[in-house]
């Protein structure tokens, strides 16, 4: 989860419940209520309203497009968590997909391929097919 702050941006109210942010401030006409507070007295008004967003909290969630809901079969951590070698998840610890469609943390599968017992050819830890990285 990441949090972003947007300061001094301007919010545009297009329809109730839908908001877009633009660089310009937005002006809109106020329409006074249909039920005047003072019966018998009704003055026309053309004042315009400007909304300036001072602060906005945005919550984001990221997920690898490959890999699905699963965990890495080698380190047993979620794909979106760091592998056993890394401190932080994300771009530093991406997934690698084999031609067999099995995905692992890059560091986890690299270590398996590099193991002396897996020379010259390593197999997929899940299906034992010869491991080959899938074309992107």
């Amino acid at each position: 989860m990441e949090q972003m702050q947007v300061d001094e941006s301007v919010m545009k109210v297009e329809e109730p419940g839908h908001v877009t942010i633009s660089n310009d401030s937005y002006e809109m006409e106020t329409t006074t209520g249909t039920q005047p507070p003072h019966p018998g007295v009704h003055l026309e008004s053309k004042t315009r309203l400007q909304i300036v967003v001072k602060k906005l909290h945005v919550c984001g969630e990221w997920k690898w497009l490959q890999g699905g809901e699963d965990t890495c079969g080698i380190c047993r951590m979620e794909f979106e968590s760091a592998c056993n070698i890394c401190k932080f998840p994300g771009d530093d610890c991406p997934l690698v997909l084999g031609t067999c469609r099995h995905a692992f943390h890059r560091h986890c599968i690299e270590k398996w391929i590099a193991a002396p017992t897996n020379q010259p050819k390593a197999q997929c830890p899940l299906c034992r097919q010869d491991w080959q990285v899938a074309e992107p």
Partner: protein
Amino acid sequence: MTTPSRRRLMRDFKKLQEDPPAGVSGAPTEDNILAWEAIIFGPQETPFEDGTFKLSLEFTEEYPNKPPTVKFISKMFHPNVYADGSICLDILQNRWSPTYDVAAILTSIQSLLDEPNPNSPANSLAAQLYQENRREYEKRVQQIVEQSWLNFGENEGDAVMKDEAPDAEDLPAGEVVDDQMDEGASGSNA
């Protein structure tokens, strides 16, 4: 010091506790997470039924890219178990995969008990009796099943004496062992 293999073993341990497979249990020793002790209960309706077999698992910093060394501590009579307790099982050697964990290892050994592989005998007498004289084979297995209770009692003896000393005095030694077995058997069903 935490290393990738130690972190993986902590996850294995957590999984064993949260989602324990039937009939096996295991835990790292108190001072070394690379050295584990485990118990496999003999599968029901097999000659190994009611056995409580102790094993040791020794991991290295290469785990899970290399399998642990697994040995029976309890005496075993099985076509694929050597006299020193080491086990001839393909997934612990050339068919190892880094996706295996402690639970997978222990359940594989548990199913090996009643499904020996006569093509790779580690105990030639056990292999021969298994194929040629099943009655004698089962008799020999029954002997090591009974021995496993004695070993089990001995190893856990200290704890039993501390916790149940007054009761234990009133019972003949054999019944103390039986009590332990009941605990073990109920554990395997849980």
